[in-house]
């Protein structure tokens, strides 16, 4: 009896713990992402894929990711999810930690941009799987240094909240083609979940992921056995980002207290200079003075009031000699933007369209946190014209799929009057309509969400303003494109007239009258009575270059002279080659040629190629001109804008030079977005 009772007690204790874990899940399922059967499978895919991408990025491996979902029991809604990557794999001894502990890893302390900031981690998936099916998660992991892969089942000891390994063996892992798998990870897990299609689906999640991870190869097999493939469009891995120290403007009291407590530094100045970014020797001394702390004080011995005083000095509430303490900006090399060209490729690969404009704003700082906004706009006949445009939101390369309306990025898009740029928008407010998709990516060391669900960004005026400005620029590009298209159509008509119809009229009338075919030059000049510029930008398969050809026709009765300027992707690493007419660099990404005299009826041809680019990188060249007579097919150059671009180039060059610590010139006020981020283009300024 006694034994039996004890057994029951044991069981009850076990049950209580079980209930506690279930309750933990139940209570927090919203921010864990397991609040509905439909969402659970998306969350599971997200945790697994984010881990794979992060791991590949850190190990500098071009990711190949396979995701497969199969139905196990339709009545009970049991799905099996299998994800496989070619990442570095996880060493045998770390598997338990990675899959069996909540919030494992160092990324919560490091300040840099990472995907994994968002979510509970793969442990949540293991937990959800066990709670809903009672089954462990199978892990197959191979690291390059081991000859075999480890195969192991991971469950959770719900009492101790730690991983339980079972059936661990080492096996030979072969690829489909019987070659040995060098390294990688495969996770197979069953869960109660429902697979659905549409805007909020695994498909959409992977599609969006592939847009912002153009370096990844992603394959997805859905429960119906249909396979989708998003190919890699660049061999370039995202730049390796450095972790940075926190900036005094972005720190909170609790964090500061902890840092002081854990410090082993002997003096305040050393502590301030070594643990924070943006603090020069002078600033460190001034901060101590403002906080009324001795320079020689050990940080560990600070009292709560001292810490508070230090924080006030950080935030500029305490001054020295009536002046705010000057701090340097935090470095922004902790950010990894996708970059204009790659966004363009990513968008073009999943959406078939004619016009793509992308823009990466310069990194900037809000409240001590570096951030960077990137946007893309794709427009074309292939898309649905009478529906709202598709919004593709991302934070640190992770798709945001829920709560679109409450998101800061959506609000920034909605704040633009898109009607002036050629999209429909009721009352000039809200999400515009038209055959377009808009992408926004926020890269930041500290992404602020409206809630634990981490699906919508919370309001931040600096991020809003940066996003809005980028949108306006996109809009101007779109308007330009549409105007150009219209003009081109007209020009094409004129060319058809003089190249086809007029010669036919001349020949036919001559043959009816039995007279010689008359010369057309005079008529052509009278009909066109304009200077016309024709541009063609085409990918040359053989040379792997972009060939650009610009022809300027003088169809007026006087001789003309012009300067022609073009934009070209200098910033993105393109190189101008086979430019036989020479010319000169007018500014970053702007090249110019002089065309001295162009007699009536004559034409001038400019030809050059762009190398070091891939197909689809550069599809349209903008031509500008200096000269009195208007040129159809080119835009009159705004000299002010050129000056502006040159100025920005200088600023850019300066900021690229390594910043000297203690250089008091490069300071900034807390919470002020610096300058205009240097982003004027020839499409026009901020109007």
């Amino acid at each position, binding site marked *: 009896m006694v034994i039996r009772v004890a057994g029951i007690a044991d069981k009850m204790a076990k049950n209580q713990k079980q209930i506690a874990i279930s309750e933990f899940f139940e209570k927090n399922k919203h921010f864990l992402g397991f609040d509905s059967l439909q969402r659970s499978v998306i969350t599971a895919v997200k945790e697994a894929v984010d881990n794979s991408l992060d791991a590949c990025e850190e190990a500098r491996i071009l990711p190949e990711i396979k995701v497969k979902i199969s139905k196990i029991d339709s009545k009970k809604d049991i799905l099996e999810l299998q994800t496989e990557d070619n990442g570095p794999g996880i060493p045998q001894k770390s598997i338990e930690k990675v899959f069996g502990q909540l919030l494992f890893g160092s990324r919560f302390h490091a300040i840099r941009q990472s995907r994994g900031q968002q979510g509970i981690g793969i442990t949540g998936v293991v937990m959800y799987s066990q709670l809903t099916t009672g089954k462990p998660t199978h892990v197959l992991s191979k690291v390059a240094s081991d000859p075999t892969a480890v195969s192991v089942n991971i469950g959770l000891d719900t009492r101790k909240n730690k991983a339980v390994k079972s059936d661990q063996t080492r096996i030979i892992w072969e690829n489909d083609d019987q070659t040995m798998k060098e390294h990688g990870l495969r996770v197979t897990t069953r869960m109660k979940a429902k697979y659905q299609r549409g805007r909020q689906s695994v498909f959409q999640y992977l599609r969006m992921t592939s847009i912002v991870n153009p370096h990844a190869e992603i394959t997805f097999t859905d429960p119906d056995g249909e396979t989708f493939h998003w190919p890699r469009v660049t061999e370039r891995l995202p730049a390796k980002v450095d972790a940075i120290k926190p900036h005094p403007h972005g720190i909170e009291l609790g964090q500061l207290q902890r840092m002081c407590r854990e410090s082993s530094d002997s003096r305040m100045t050393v502590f301030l200079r070594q643990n924070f970014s943006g603090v020069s020797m002078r600033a460190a001394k001034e901060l101590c003075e403002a906080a009324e702390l001795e320079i020689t004080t050990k940080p560990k011995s600070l009292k709560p009031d001292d810490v508070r005083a230090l924080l006030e000095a950080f935030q500029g509430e305490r001054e020295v000699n009536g002046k705010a303490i000057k701090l340097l900006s935090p470095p922004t090399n902790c950010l990894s933007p996708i970059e204009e060209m790659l966004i363009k490729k990513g968008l073009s690969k999943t959406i078939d369209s004619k016009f793509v404009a992308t823009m990466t704003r310069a990194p900037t700082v809000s409240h001590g946190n570096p951030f960077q906004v990137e946007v893309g706009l794709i427009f074309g006949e292939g898309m649905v014209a009478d529906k709202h445009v598709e919004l593709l939101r991302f934070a640190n390369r992770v798709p945001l799929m829920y709560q679109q309306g409450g998101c800061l990025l959506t609000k920034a898009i909605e704040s633009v009057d898109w009607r002036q740029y050629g999209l429909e928008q009721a009352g000039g407010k809200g999400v515009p309509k038209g055959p377009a998709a808009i992408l926004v990516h926020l890269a930041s060391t500290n992404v602020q969400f409206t809630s634990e669900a981490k699906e919508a960004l919370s309001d931040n005026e600096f991020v809003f303003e940066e996003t809005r400005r980028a949108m306006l620029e996109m809009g101007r590009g779109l308007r330009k494109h549409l105007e150009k298209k219209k003009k081109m159509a007209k020009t094409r008509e004129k060319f058809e007239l003089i190249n086809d119809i007029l010669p*036919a*009229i001349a020949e036919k009338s001559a043959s009816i009258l039995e007279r010689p075919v008359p010369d057309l030059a005079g008529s052509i000049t009278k009909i066109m009575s304009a200077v016309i510029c024709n541009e063609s930008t085409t990918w040359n398969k053989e040379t792997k270059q972009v060939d650009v050809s610009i022809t300027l026709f003088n169809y007026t009765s006087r001789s003309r002279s012009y300067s022609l300027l073009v934009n070209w992707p200098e910033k993105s690493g393109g190189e101008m080659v086979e430019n036989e007419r020479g010319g000169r660099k007018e500014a970053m990404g702007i090249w110019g040629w002089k065309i001295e005299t162009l007699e009536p009826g004559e034409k001038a041809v400019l030809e050059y190629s762009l190398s070091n680019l891939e197909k689809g990188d550069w599809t349209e060249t903008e031509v500008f001109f200096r000269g009195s007579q208007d040129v159809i097919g080119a835009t009159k150059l705004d000299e002010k804008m050129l000056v502006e671009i040159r100025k920005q180039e200088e600023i850019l060059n300066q900021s690229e030079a390594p910043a000297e610590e203690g250089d008091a010139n490069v300071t900034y006020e807390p919470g002020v977005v610096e300058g205009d981020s240097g982003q004027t283009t020839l499409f026009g300024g901020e109007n």
Partner: protein
Amino acid sequence: MARVNDPELTKARLHLVVEEMYDRIVKGEPPTMTLPVRTKNNIGFDKKLGVYKYGKKRSTRDATSLGSAKNLLRALHVVEFIEEMIEAGKSSTLREMYYISESWGLGKFGSQNESNNLAEDLEVVTTCLREDFKLRPEEDGARMIGNVTIEELNRRGQWMTINARDDVGDSGYGVPYNVEIEKIRLKEHDVNFLMAIETGGMFDRLVENGFDEEYNCGLIHLKGQPARSTRRIMKRMNEEWDLPVIVFLDGDPWSFRIFASIAYGAIKTAHISEYLATPSASYLGITADDILAYDLPSDELSKKDIEALNAELSDPRFADGWWQDQINMMLEIGKKAEQQSLAKYGLDFVTDTYLPEKLGEMGLA
């Protein structure tokens, strides 16, 4: 303007159109084609002829836009095609020409409307008739019943004598597309007047009721807007036999236009009004007065009807007082009525009461 009926002259006139284009190119100018403006703003009453003709306004179609350049090229293809037909002794319908243009490359027609318009343009510019161009219309000629005898040259080159009362069935004599002297001779008649009728239903009603015999008249079914040949044969009978032409139509703005094209000349064919128009033709009904006087079943005027009536108020062909009154009255009552609404009072009402009363007012019954 006159019927040319001379292939060499037709060709010479067409060459003038081609020369205009050619000479402009030689001068280093865009080729052009100059032609009268063909809208109601450019028709005026020709006192000598008693019909409406195009005025002096001319428009120039020049090859500075793709559309008009293509039009000039098409005109050249049509000229060439006409010359070929003249030389080969063939003719073609306008529709056939539209299909033949498929092989004209850049000069092919976009729609048949374009080819019809261009044929008319060339008539206007050259002052020739499309018969000179060997182009036939697709349009359906009228039907005719009554004691009228004509001679028609048949396919075998024999002259046939046809009496439009005794030698025809109930559908009457079919008027061919060419009613010129080389094809149709008016031989003799025993009628007091001709009555042109808009709808087939009313034509058949009068035939069934024996109206043509009782009132000694010729009945002509117009089939809506009358074809050129219909207008031309009425004009010939009016001139050669001195027969009054009475026009009996629906009572709506479109019928007014039909009457104008019979009596004064149509805007589209104002270049040949003196061939087609019968200035002495009179409008019998349905008038706006009739709708009230006979209390006819009527329909509300549609938006388009009202627009058409307002356009007619500023049309020079409707400038006289009687028409202005009729149009204004119709606008005022806001109603229109069909010929067949007379059946409200029985099938014989039109022949026993309405027409005798109206003809009486005109001094014909």
